[in-house]
């Protein structure tokens, strides 16, 4: 007797159909075999399925059982074929029909209950695209699938429940799109911007960066507040919109980063990998290509503290994703594409000892050391960072004396409102474009959306000449000016917007 149960496999963010074919025969010695390039985890599925069925008080059929995972030439990985295999075996033994337009997915525990499995959101999206009507997934993962309202999602707690359901004895309740989808949550930040005293320009730069999704580099002595500024950033980020939310959730679902019972990711990711992070850890990779930090920071923030301490090879690998907003990881057997549209926030010391140009402390570094230190981040990388800002050392006395009068900074909430407005403007502007924020604009978009008047163009030209800007920096200035104008709620980019943008040019190269 031959039964077919539909399931799927994930390669990166792509999903492919897998047919689990179960053949039971009364001839030959009883046995249980899986063919179709199963990995170790899939092969061990035999023991899990056997035990889970027995522990569900169902007799495991004493027949010769062959499982084929088709297509047979693609390696299968992971533990989520447990459920379709068990259903196939039991369907033959207990004689119930497996619905045709249904997908089964999930890992079994030895007691027959189902465990939280990664990639369920991707499965639901796949089901929707290919016309499946129902999916059976572990209960703990069902919230992810519930985001796709077009399909019926059955949350399965125990193997026995599905069997009863399919045999028509009980009816499983499909999960409905939870009416309390957490949209528009404000991310909790460690600090409020108002708590950071001084650093007016750095805060302003953060605001512009967050509004337009621009990359930003902060340079300053130890203790000047770079890390604090970065940690306060989540509090002023704009809300994730629905499309963005789904994109982020996909990456997290595929990499198993959604906790059991979790659902849509509704706050912008904020990732801050340590500088010992490997290239694969940052970019993604492995023989089964996994997303790296840059993809986990998709639509959010990738904070690289002590930027110059990262190995040069790791930093250089950022170049292409920074440009393309995605990364394609190619390995001998597989290829995976992960989105990586992140906002890079980097912080660096001005020199190895950290006290170059410090008002009080003297720098202990030789010129050579300083130069080597600066060389660790190459020109091309720095060129791809839109905003460059100095974070000067703040003197303690100033902070305490003038605290009330001079430093009344805005709260994160106030800043966030302004940023949200600017982001909404951008969303409207790019409705018919494949991009979301100003930072993503290419030349063609700049021509359309960042037209400069003669006067402003002139100013930019003079500035570019005086400050020896590269062609890329020249376009960067246009993007930043566009964002500043958006924050100012102006349609046209005016002189003052461009002049302010020039404040955030790269100052690292034009020393000497």
């Amino acid at each position, binding site marked *: 007797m031959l039964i077919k149960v539909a399931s799927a496999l994930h390669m990166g963010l792509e999903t492919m159909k897998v047919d689990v074919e179960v053949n039971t025969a009364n001839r030959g010695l009883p046995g249980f075999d899986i063919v179709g390039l199963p990995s170790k985890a899939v092969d061990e599925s035999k023991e899990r399925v056997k035990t889970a069925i027995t522990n569900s008080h169902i007799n495991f059929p004493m027949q010769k059982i062959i499982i084929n995972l088709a297509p047979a030439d693609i390696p299968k990985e992971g533990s989520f074929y447990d459920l379709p295999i068990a259903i196939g075996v039991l369907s033959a033994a207990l004689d119930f029909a497996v619905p045709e337009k249904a997908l089964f997915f999930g890992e079994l525990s030895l007691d027959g209950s189902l465990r939280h499995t990664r990639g369920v959101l991707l499965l639901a999206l796949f089901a929707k695209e290919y016309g499946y009507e129902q999916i059976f997934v572990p209960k703990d993962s069902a919230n992810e699938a519930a985001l796709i309202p077009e399909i019926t999602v059955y949350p399965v707690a125990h193997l026995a429940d599905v069997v009863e359901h399919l045999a028509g004895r009980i009816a499983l309740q499909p999960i409905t799109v939870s009416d309390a989808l957490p949209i528009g949550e404000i991310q909790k930040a460690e600090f409020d911007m108002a708590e950071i005293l001084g650093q007016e320009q750095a805060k*302003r730069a953060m605001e512009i960066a967050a509004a337009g999704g621009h990359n930003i580099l902060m340079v300053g002595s130890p203790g000047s507040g770079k890390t604090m500024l970065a940690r306060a950033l989540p509090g002023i980020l704009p809300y994730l919109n629905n499309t963005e939310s789904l994109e982020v959730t996909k990456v997290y679902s595929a990499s198993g980063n959604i906790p059991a019972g979790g659902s849509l990711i509704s706050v912008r990711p904020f990732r801050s990998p340590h500088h010992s992070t490997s290239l694969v850890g940052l970019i993604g990779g492995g023989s089964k290509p996994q997303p790296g930090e840059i993809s986990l920071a998709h639509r959010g923030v990738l904070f690289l503290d002590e930027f110059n301490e990262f190995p040069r090879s790791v930093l250089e690998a950022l170049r292409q994703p920074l440009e393309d907003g995605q990364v394609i990881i190619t390995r001998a057997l597989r290829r995976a594409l992960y989105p990586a549209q992140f906002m890079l926030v980097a912080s660096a010391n001005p020199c190895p000892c950290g006290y170059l*140009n410090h008002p009080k402390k*003297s720098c202990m570094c030789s010129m050579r050391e300083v130069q080597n230190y600066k060389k660790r981040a190459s020109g091309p990388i720095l060129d791809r960072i839109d905003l460059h800002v100095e974070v*000067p050392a703040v003197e303690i006395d100033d902070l305490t004396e*003038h605290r009330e009068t001079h430093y009344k900074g805005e709260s994160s909430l106030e800043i966030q409102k302004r940023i949200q407005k600017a982001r909404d403007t951008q969303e409207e502007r790019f409705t018919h474009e494949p991009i979301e924020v100003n930072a993503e604009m290419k030349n063609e978009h700049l021509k359309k959306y960042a037209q400069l008047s003669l006067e402003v163009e002139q100013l930019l030209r003079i500035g570019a000449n005086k400050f020896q800007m590269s062609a890329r920096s020249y376009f960067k200035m246009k993007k930043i000016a566009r964002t500043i104008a958006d924050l100012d709620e102006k349609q046209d980019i005016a002189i*003052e917007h461009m002049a*302010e943008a020039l404040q955030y040019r790269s*100052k690292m190269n034009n020393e000497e």
Partner: protein
Amino acid sequence: MNNQLSLQNNLYPLLLKEISDSPATLYYKGIWDEHIFTHCLAVVGSRNMTQYGKRVVDQVIGEVAASGITIVSGFMYGIDAQAHKAAVDAGGKTIAVMPCGIERIHPAYQEDLYNTIQETGGLIISEWDGDSMPAKWTFPKRNRIVAGLAQATLVVEAGLESGSLITAAFAKKFGRRVFAVPGPITSEVSKGTAKLVQEGASLVMGADDILAYFGKKQRMQKNTVRQKSDDPVEQSILDTLGSDVIEIDWIARKIGMPVAKVGTALSLMELRGVVSEENGKYYVN
């Protein structure tokens, strides 16, 4: 063929001949013109140049070099290199005395400056042939030539253990005038110059003090009139800056305006050449 000049040669700089252990042979690059040695000022100072030091060199040395006085220094980064640059920028001539063989550029990354010095009629000098490496002992040896070539030595910024003090000591020993630029006594690199003043060096408050010593006419005083602007924001920035070097956050705080506005104004002023920015701090030109 190497350019070289022996002690017996008529073209050998007279001032350098006077000292007790003048180098027997001078190797050089560039075009030897004896007039370059008529008026020479040695400028030395710390490698850890502060912004203050840089401003002093740019202002004072620029003016001194422009009035035809040759600037002699040691081509090290920091004050030395800045002095060479200021001289070249002002259209003056400058001589770099190397601590290594004549064929070597040390430090190598200052190659551009090395070439510019020669292109603008200046000289590169060393008492060593070939491309020998600099060593601990070659620096003080070099310093005696720096001091020996010049009628006076100006120390801009120097720590207490600085090689610049060795140059100043040579100048004193040769009976030449030693000038020192005062600086904040809290700064590490002002302690050496402060000590020189205590020991009787002439305190320098501007290019005039040096020009007077060389018997040059004092140039027109500039920067006496404060910069004015029609724009009220720019005016208050100018008032706040005065003659200080201040970071943007401070300016914004002092005049009580959003930093975005102040940044806009500063960018425009910088493009017009009214103010300059260095390491995040602004000053009026």
